[in-house]
């Protein structure tokens, strides 16, 4: 709890590396606001999730109102407004993956992690008590040929079975 409060109240600013990335970005567009999505991605990478402080900072950088930033953050599923686990596990559950038994993979993950599936408005529901994993369902990841698939943070895992899930979790836990 105290952690959470500190994070919200601590002002946010880009670290040096991200500042450089941002400076390079901003020159790409005729209006600053257009850098919104890439900027939020960088900010989320640094802060873990989009806190009010992050929104305020991004708004200042892009010279738009905080409301506009909030508006965007709430629209896109990839931006989190709550803390998530160290590993975000996205399980694809759209038709081609469903035809290849993604449900077995999802159920197995639920059981192994001992958590429910997060919803967009309640990420805590899908986050393990130790804060290591967040489990969520996502729509087609454009890899239906190797279904069922999941993404763990930035990496895609293909043709999953419960056994492969076990191996993966063991690797991540170590």
């Amino acid at each position: 709890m105290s952690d959470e409060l500190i994070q919200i109240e601590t002002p946010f600013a880009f670290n040096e590396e991200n500042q450089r990335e941002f400076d390079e970005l901003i020159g790409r567009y005729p209006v600053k606001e257009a850098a919104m999505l890439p900027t939020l991605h960088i900010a989320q990478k640094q802060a873990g999730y989009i806190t009010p402080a992050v929104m305020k900072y991004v708004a200042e950088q892009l010279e738009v109102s905080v409301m506009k930033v909030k508006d965007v953050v709430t629209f896109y599923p990839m931006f989190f407004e709550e803390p998530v686990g160290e590993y975000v596990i996205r399980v694809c559950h759209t038709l081609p993956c469903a035809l290849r038994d993604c449900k077995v993979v999802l159920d197995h993950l639920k059981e192994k992690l001992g958590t429910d599936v997060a919803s967009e408005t309640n990420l805590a529901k899908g986050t393990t008590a130790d804060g290591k994993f967040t489990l969520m369902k996502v729509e087609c990841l454009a890899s239906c040929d190797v279904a069922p698939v999941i993404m763990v943070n930035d990496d895609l895992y293909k043709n999953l079975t419960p056994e492969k899930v076990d191996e993966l979790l063991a690797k991540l836990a170590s």
Partner: protein
Amino acid sequence: MVEERRILYEHLDVPDINTFDVFCQYDGYTRFEKAIAEYQPEDIAKMVMDSGLKGRGGAGFSTGLKWSFVPKDIKPCYLCCNADESEPGTFSNRYVLEKNPHLLIEGILICCYAMGIETTYIYIRGEFTLGKKMLDAAIKEAYEKGYLGENIRGTGLNVDIYSHPGAGAYICGEETGLIESLEGKRGQPRNKPPFPAVEGVFGKPTVVQNVETLCNLPFIVGNGVEWYTQMGPTYADTRANPPTPDPNTGTKLYCISGDVNEPGVYELDLGLTCTELIEVAGGLRGEEVKAVIPGGSSAPILTHYELDTRLDFTSLTLAKSMLGSGGIIVMNETRNIVDCLLNIMKFYAHESCGQCTPCRWGTPWVRDIVQRIADGEGRDSTITRPKFGIAENGRWGDTGETEEIYEDLDLLESVANNIANVDTMTWNTICVFGIAVSWPAVSYMRKFRPEFEAAIREGKLVTLPVAEATVPPEENYAYQQRFVPQEFADL
């Protein structure tokens, strides 16, 4: 058996083809060199028009025609490459981005040269982290080698390419949603007109083009229109009397998934049949084909009666479906169509951008009706309504008879048709997402009505044998177009 013809994907598996040097060993950038050395920009635009190239992203709109709408006197003009690839069942752009990004850059250069464009944004799906990494590396290399930036190859041509990540919203694949998103807003589609070609990103003329469409350009320029138009079955016969039936030229990166033995991307000439494609993909996994979705989840479903339908733009339009993004999803006899529809409707209910009331409320409503039916709680009271079929004049229409239908099925059809009416092809929404919702909803229900009825009657999901589950063509409005246009009969 139909042979693969790899053109866009020819060098996909060459090790290190993602690097500039290896790409150049395989003719890389020579087609762009040829374009700037031998042709004027107008010549390129004419070649693209003559090639009959149609957009591969979903709408299948003629690329040459789209370019011709762009006003020549308003600058700057932008190119947005649509790499948002989120239509369920589609995965061909991903491989280009991850394995052969220089091919896309070359295609973009040719487009920029033809259209006098200096800035390109590649809107790449947020989840494509590897694809973005590979693409960014390739862009960086192209700058270093003098193929991007200012005064390219001493020609005075300036082109900048920037990649721009999305953040997980399907609707940003729609071209005006993409533009809004690129401008840093919610990805909510705009009213059209004005079309992006006239007023797009930052209020300027904008060409929006799919990755695969752009990757065709080097080959059209390199090998010529004559060569290009030989691929695809219907062009030679129909060239004599354009515009309809219109050309279907070139190859298509068919993405096939679901119940086949070897799912994957197969590059084939446009126009092979469903049966042939399933055979190419290692055959069916299972005993019998129950249904095929021919163009991503938005496309109306095909039944086992329709497996001889050719998978090209014109033939599928005539079959009242669409080639869309070329994502083919196959379902075998063990699948329950109600269940499949439920999955798809959950997708659309999640992805509606929420701007238009019919879509925002209608889509979850359709989902809830299907959910209710799947849970065995479908409303089993019946209502009487006019029956459509072959009317007295021999055409499809009101037969003067009536039919009994379960309340929930009538409701399903009515709610879906009020988002976008699939019979009149009119929609009450800003973008054609509305059609993408009602097309599957209505076509699944009409073509597999016995399975929906069984679920309501029995109070649980019942998977019927293929023959029993499917409504035969002569009994259903959903197939009407297959009978009407005589002049298209032998396409």
